[in-house]
């Protein structure tokens, strides 16, 4: 028997693995190919088998015709994959920020486990979280598809519907925004270079009065400058491209930096005396403001991820 024929059948067998009637299928294909080679090409040899096998088609395509054509996720549910994953991941990202800030574990067994992480660890954790979210949504859609029931899933619109997402700003606004942000970032860098902080009690930079202690001022200033730099870089990139990936990456880094900012101890951070009773209120105010910003950035991240997901689906 020709090795070529057996190798071809072995390839088909590989793609048919798991089917009980595999041997039967292969026997029938073998019988067909040998008969055709004999009847149409005068005999069974390598040359005739090559032609017959080529006409029969690639092994994978042949095997696929025997496989059940039912989709893993029904076409009607495909659009939910991107949207639900985006929402879940945004929620996951937000909880990650909380876990980093409050130094706590969050467990919602078996869907969510948010360990107490540092900022660097959180950044490494997020891609894994994204894959887990994608897998979870996929699994739910898979079971719904296999149930063969016409389940109407909710289509969340709370501030993330693409129709409400404004198109990217025009280039001229990006340029103006970039120039303004660059000026602010440069000024902050200049202040930091001169005084190792950007937080002052007065506006007289020749004899400045520092708001924060040198150590706290340096740390917090660096984080704020990094946030300004991310915003500036994002606006710079948007001059050349309207890709929402730029915004999504910018949002993600900003969220991480806000998380880092929230983790900074502020009890002994002030260089001026703060009345004891005022300190908890200041702490609460700062935390609330930063969390509010984090929520806004997270919502923007959701919008961008939904827009990216929808665009990808539309291309399919």
């Amino acid at each position: 028997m020709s090795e070529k024929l057996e190798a071809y059948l072995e390839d088909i067998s590989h793609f048919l693995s798991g089917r009980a009637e595999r041997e039967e299928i292969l026997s029938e294909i073998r019988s067909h190919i040998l008969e055709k080679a004999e009847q149409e090409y005068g005999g069974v040899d390598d040359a005739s088998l090559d032609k017959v096998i080529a006409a029969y088609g690639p092994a994978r395509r042949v095997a696929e015709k025997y496989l059940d054509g039912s989709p893993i996720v029904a076409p009607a549910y495909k659009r939910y994959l991107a949207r639900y994953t985006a929402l879940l991941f945004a929620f996951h990202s937000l909880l990650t920020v909380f876990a980093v800030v409050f130094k706590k574990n969050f467990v919602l067994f078996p869907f969510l486990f948010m360990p107490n992480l540092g900022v660097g660890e959180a950044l490494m954790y997020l891609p894994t979280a994204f894959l887990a979210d994608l897998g979870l949504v996929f699994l739910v859609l898979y079971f719904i598809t296999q149930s063969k029931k016409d389940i109407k899933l909710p289509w969340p619109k709370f501030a993330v519907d693409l129709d409400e997402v404004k198109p990217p700003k025009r280039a001229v606004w990006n340029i103006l925004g970039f120039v303004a942000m660059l000026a602010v970032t440069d000024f902050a860098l200049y202040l930091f270079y001169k005084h190792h902080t950007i937080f002052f009690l007065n506006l007289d930079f020749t004899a400045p009065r520092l708001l924060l202690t040198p150590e706290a001022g340096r740390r917090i200033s660096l984080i704020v400058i990094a946030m300004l730099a991310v915003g500036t870089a994002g606006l710079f990139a948007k001059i050349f491209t309207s890709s929402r990936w730029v915004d999504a990456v910018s949002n993600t880094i900003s969220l991480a930096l806000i998380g880092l900012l929230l983790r900074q101890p502020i009890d002994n951070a002030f260089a001026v005396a703060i009345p004891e009773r005022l300190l908890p209120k200041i702490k609460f105010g700062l935390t609330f403001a930063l969390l509010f910003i984090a929520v806004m950035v997270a919502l923007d991240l959701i919008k961008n991820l939904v827009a990216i997901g929808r665009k990808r689906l539309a291309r399919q």
Partner: protein
Amino acid sequence: MDPEIGNFETEMNRGFLQILVLALLKKEMYGYAMVRTIRDMGYEVEENTLYPLLRRLEKNGWVTSKWDVGEDRPRKFYAITDRGRSLRSGLLGIWKKQDDILKRIMKER
């Protein structure tokens, strides 16, 4: 052939091939013989489509099969069942109705 027509032909063939196979099985036949018979009538059928179709028809009880190992090469022969005959007559009825509709429309124009 125009590739666009080719795409439509592939879609149309899906239904047509089922009727064709059930019609051919007035007598027992094996796969290669079906391919040759169809080709001799001036029509091409993809071999790798025919066998999965036969398997589906068999799974649903419209045809049966048995291996004949008496000759020099084993061959799997297919035969239509009573259920298959009933299906064939139903499908041919639909096909005839569709054909009549198209003929009437074309005549009106």
